[in-house]
């Protein structure tokens, strides 16, 4: 039972991460390899505040969202000047720099050894300690973020995002402040990813930089792509498939020391396969082709 709850919690965390990346990469067309950095900043802000300031859960989550959002704005800014694969490389740079800071600023982040003993969260006097409690908490945030993302993409704001993805010059010509929209979608996406980070760190009650590597970013991208970029339910389906699939390997009796590698081979394979045969994923509307390439 514990095991099933654990899997559901992980699915919830990846749903939050992939919905938030989907807003940036799927709806706006700004592919980013920096998502694990937002996830990590959120997690570290909450962990450090809980450990050093003993501040309550709700304060920590708000601070995590704000700080990660600020980083999001920073990552979004290069998109005003560079496009496509150049921009991907720029987000990659942010990812590597963030990881470097988490890993090397030992006196502040604990470095590769990580920080143990993060206390259980207390919300309105209620301490969450069981798996079921965490699942409910994460389920609540999943629903909230799904609803938010639904509202965003249905709104005029969301239509502008799609217009930027399809034809940036057109959006500009229609009088939209493309720069502001791009930066703002990064702030929103990064803020949402921070929530996933906070959930993760309270749930595991330990944090180290190895959870927030480039590979993690690639994994989140795979979730979005498999589910379908630019669709509302795509990330949800992607998260279920990509979290459950490797767990099945456990049942066919794969030894644990190869499991991590096989898991990565699996999602690398999915990434290639989907790019070759179904770039818009299960449900997607967007296949990472810009307007001019499609003609």
């Amino acid at each position, binding site marked *: 039972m514990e095991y099933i709850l654990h899997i559901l919690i992980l699915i919830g965390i990846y749903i939050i991460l992939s919905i938030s990346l989907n807003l940036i990469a799927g709806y706006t067309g700004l*592919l980013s390899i920096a998502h694990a950095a937002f996830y990590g900043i959120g997690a570290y802000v909450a962990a450090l505040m809980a450990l050093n300031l003993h501040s309550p859960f709700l304060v920590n989550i708000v601070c995590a969202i704000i700080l990660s959002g600020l980083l999001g704005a920073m990552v979004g*800014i*290069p998109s005003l*000047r*560079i*496009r*496509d*694969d*150049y921009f*991907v*490389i*720029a987000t*990659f*740079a*942010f990812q*590597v*720099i963030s990881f*470097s*800071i988490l*890993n*090397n600023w030992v006196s502040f982040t604990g470095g590769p050894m990580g920080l143990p003993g993060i206390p259980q969260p207390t919300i309105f006097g209620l301490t969450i300690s069981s798996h079921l409690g965490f699942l409910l908490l994460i389920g609540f945030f999943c629903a909230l973020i799904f609803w938010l993302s639904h509202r965003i993409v249905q709104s005029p704001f969301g239509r502008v995002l799609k217009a930027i993805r399809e034809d940036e010059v057109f959006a500009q010509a229609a009088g939209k402040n493309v720069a502001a929209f791009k930066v703002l979608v990064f702030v929103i996406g990064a803020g949402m990813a921070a929530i996933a980070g906070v959930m993760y760190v309270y749930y595991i009650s330990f944090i180290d930089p190895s959870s927030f590597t*480039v*590979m993690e970013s*690639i994994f989140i*991208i*795979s979730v979005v*792509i498999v589910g379908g970029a630019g669709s509302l339910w795509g990330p949800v389906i992607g998260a279920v498939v990509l979290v459950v699939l490797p767990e099945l390997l456990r049942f066919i009796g794969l030894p644990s020391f*190869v499991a991590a*590698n*096989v898991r*990565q*081979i699996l*999602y*690398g*394979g*999915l*990434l*290639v*396969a989907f*790019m*070759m045969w179904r*770039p818009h994923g299960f449900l997607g509307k967007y*296949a*990472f*082709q*810009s307007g001019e*390439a*499609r003609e």
Partner: protein
Amino acid sequence: MAQFITNILITASSIVLVGLGFSLIYRTTKFFDLAYAFLFMAGPYFVLLLNSHLGFVLHLAVFLSVIIVGLIGVLLDTLIYRPLRRRNASALVLLLSSLGVYVILQNVISLVFGDENISIRFGKIEQGINILGAKITSIQILLIGLSVAAIVTTSMLIRYTRIGLAIRAVSSSPELANVSGMQSERVIFWATFMSSIIVGIAGILVAIDVNMNPTMGMNALMVGIVVVLVGGMGSIPGVVLGALFLGSAQHLGVWVIGSQWQDAIAFVILLAFLLIKPEGFMGKKIRKATA
């Protein structure tokens, strides 16, 4: 001081090889092929396999490994990127699939050889010889010599041979090159083979000089990309200048704030260039940057 300059030269030489291979392939296929990180790291592992496990003489093992890496590069291009190109896949789709390829192959290497650092240093550890007060080992001299040779050979090939002419033609306009009777796919084939070989050599030399692990490729490739972008896409002098610049910046950085920040330094430089001067030192204006 002499030691400092020598160290910069050694670092710059290994960077320049990756940058050279990468700039050659980027100018023909026009996307960031992250699978080159695998090709870089595969070289030394094949040497290890052929030399230690199958008993080939070291020199033969190195030679065979380089060829194998070249063939893998060509194979990946034929099996994966060519079908995608035929469908007019965007640079992003190609980049994402190369990312997938890298993830798969890197993990295969991890599974087979393990994640720990392995040394393929051969013979006994040398003291290094003194040149003008700087210590340098023979493998480091070989590294510098080979990278100079590679720069000269590649420049010559690009400038004076028919295949070089074809590569230049395809990189400036694939359609036009096709119209004038050059088969762009064949040109890409040869460019892929050449660049894979260069990157493979770089990987082996670096592994012999320091040591190797399955993730060494990504770091090297990223540094290579930084150099290509900083130097300017498609310019060999730019790559050399970029490598010297990055090599110096990294050594200065290590000296001032510590070696663990090497990657961060490279990427901060990259971001600065992408934001301020996306065409690099010597490149032409690019379409992907709106200045």
